[in-house]
């Protein structure tokens, strides 16, 4: 038997009226579509994301003792204890495949909402399909600033976008400069899809506003067989800070090529993505002592909020990895979405949308260093404070902003 959205809706309303509370527990389920790359070059991100979502699912569907929405008790109480079920779809990092999969999830799997997608370029098409079918799209881990500026009504993002991240980087530079560190020139190095392009544009804009000089702005072809010409240009520019926006493969090749061509920058401040990946540090971590990357997540937070450590252990048992910037946001994305469905007391797309728009979760009830989760009219959460993390002795420590920092930045990097 397949359960449609209407069944869930009817079931929930009917049981609410007729059946005593206790009997409602097994009435129905709510289906959420999860779109990620599960094959192709970014498949590992999809597989890690799946583990993050399954961890969140366990928190939602089982009775756990965390101070998170829906952690206590089983399932969604607002829907008579309905369980959440996830349907995973593979977009292969291709926006057109993402579009087709979103359509399939909505029309055939009858999902109530969709969450995704790792690549921002895919989020563009998936969110458009969701808008057309009036199904909420939660952008768990996409960071392109242009995503929430398209006037979409069903688009929501709890985590920061690259302008917020970039602003945090420049706040950090400003703070260092005030203490007398020389930071005048920057090299931007970004890949040529929407993530790298948006990130590069945001950084160029803020640099201009705050009086930093960009001495080299390299937009490169993603998945290039060789980056030696690009690194050659970075080397001759020799800026005070190198700011890469790259996915994992290019990040590994960049760092290797830099070492081969004898380019050692004073400091690297990276826009996450590849630079938050374990694979990158396994490959070239020895060359990255002191690299700084932005993030929304920091395991340091476990010292203040013990549940962060416990949930990280749950994730680690599944994936063999600690939460990183991406997987932590994916985890929170599903919790926030499920909380909205619970408050909507419905599996209907429009009602869930309204509930998402009314979301107000204090930062302490997340695993992130955020102030709160509250969406503006474009669906963006502006209270998601980014952090800057520095890779020291094989792990990341939070160095900025001061209220979240547990260590002073090491500058230059080595």
């Amino acid at each position, binding site marked *: 038997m397949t359960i449609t959205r209407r069944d869930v809706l009817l079931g929930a309303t009917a049981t609410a009226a007729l059946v005593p509370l206790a009997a409602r527990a097994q009435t129905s389920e709510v289906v959420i579509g999860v779109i990620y790359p599960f094959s192709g070059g970014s498949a590992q991100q999809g597989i890690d994301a799946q583990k993050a979502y399954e961890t969140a699912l366990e928190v939602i569907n089982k009775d756990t003792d965390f101070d998170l929405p829906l952690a206590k008790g089983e399932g969604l109480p607002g829907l008579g204890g309905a369980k959440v079920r996830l349907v995973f779809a593979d977009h292969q990092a291709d926006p057109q495949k993402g579009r087709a999969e979103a359509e399939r999830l909505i029309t055939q799997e009858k999902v109530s909402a969709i969450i995704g997608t790792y690549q921002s370029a895919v989020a563009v098409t998936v969110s458009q399909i969701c808008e057309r079918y009036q199904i909420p799209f939660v952008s768990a881990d996409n960071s392109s600033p242009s995503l929430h500026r398209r006037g979409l009504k069903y688009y929501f993002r709890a985590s920061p976008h690259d302008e917020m991240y970039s602003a945090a980087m420049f706040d950090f530079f400003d703070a260092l400069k005030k203490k007398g560190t020389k930071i005048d020139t920057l090299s931007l190095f970004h890949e*040529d899809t929407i993530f790298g392009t948006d990130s590069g544009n945001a950084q160029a804009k803020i640099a201009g506003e705050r009086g930093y000089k960009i001495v080299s702005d390299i937009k490169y072809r993603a*998945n290039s*067989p*060789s980056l030696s010409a690009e690194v050659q*240009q970075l080397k001759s520019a020799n800026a005070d800070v190198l700011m890469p926006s790259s996915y994992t493969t290019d990040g590994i090749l960049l760092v290797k090529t830099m070492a081969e*061509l*004898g380019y050692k920058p004073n400091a690297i401040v990276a826009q996450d993505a590849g630079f938050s990946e374990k694979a990158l540090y396994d490959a*070239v971590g020895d060359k990255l002592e002191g690299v700084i990357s932005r993030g929304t997540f920091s395991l340091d937070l476990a010292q203040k909020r013990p549940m962060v450590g416990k949930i990280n252990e749950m994730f680690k048992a599944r994936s063999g990895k600690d939460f990183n910037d991406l997987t932590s946001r994916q985890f929170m994305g599903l919790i926030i979405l499920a909380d909205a469905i619970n408050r909507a007391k419905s599996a209907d797309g429009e009602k869930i949308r309204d509930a998402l728009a009314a979301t107000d979760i204090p930062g302490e009830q997340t695993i992130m260093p955020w102030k709160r989760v509250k969406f503006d009219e474009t669906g963006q959460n502006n209270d998601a404070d980014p952090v800057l993390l520095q890779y020291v002795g094989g792990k990341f420590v939070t160095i900025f902003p001061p209220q979240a920092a547990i260590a002073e930045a090491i500058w230059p990097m080595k």
Partner: protein
Amino acid sequence: MTAQAIIQSLASGLLMGLLYGLIAVGLALIFGLMDVVNFAHGEFLMIAMYVSFFLFAFFAIDPLLSAPLVAAALFVFGAVVYLLIVRFAMRAKTNAGMVQIFSTFGLAIVMRGLAQFFFTPDYRSVPHSWLGGKTISVAGIFLPEPQLAGALVSILAFAGLYFFIHRTDFGRALEATREDPGAVALVGIDKNRVFALGWGLGAALVGLAGAIMASFFYIYPDVGASFALIAYVTVALGGFGSVFGAFAGGIIVGLVEATTALVLPPSLKSVGIYAVYLLVVFIRPRGLFGSM
């Protein structure tokens, strides 16, 4: 732009180009021998990189040392692919060309899928090889040792192949089969054995390239794709069927890529390759050294 930057770009381009050449030679050899394009060429490269990686991970054999082993393994693999798949695809009575394309194309997809299933999509790399990360610096020009070793192996392998084709009986049988597969049967040469040898050789060459690359490139199931495309262009540029053309084409592609990135924005660096390719096929449709 300083003279140093130009020389550095040319040097990097030449080292990369020799490697492109080595990758393309195997493709050209198989095509020249039997008019079959191996669409799984990139996946052969990927498998070679994984073999090299696992030899390092489990037995601590340096990629430079394991290169002959990997080449031998790929030789067997290439011959088996011919005997189990391509041989039958070539017998197709109707639409033979399509059947050949889809058989190797299908093989590519299967190999990628299996690699993802067994090796996981995670990115691997050989972190501490003998030459890995080491660089020779001559008058401010940096020459990474793994790429230098790769260039040297490329030249040796090409010389070896050239010697093999022109100086040995098997090589002559290879050439003869290429010229006229029907006639060689009359003088008692087993066509299937020659073709299997050709596939083995082609795979062994790309195996060498893969083993060398394992010491400076990341490894994942899709890694072959970006190199295979360049290999196809290289073969077409150098001349269909010409092994020498493929090698020269590789060097040209590497140099053009490097110089394009010097004058145009790096995101447009492949434009130069395709522009030169278009120019060549306009003026000389059979490619620079093509004989057909």
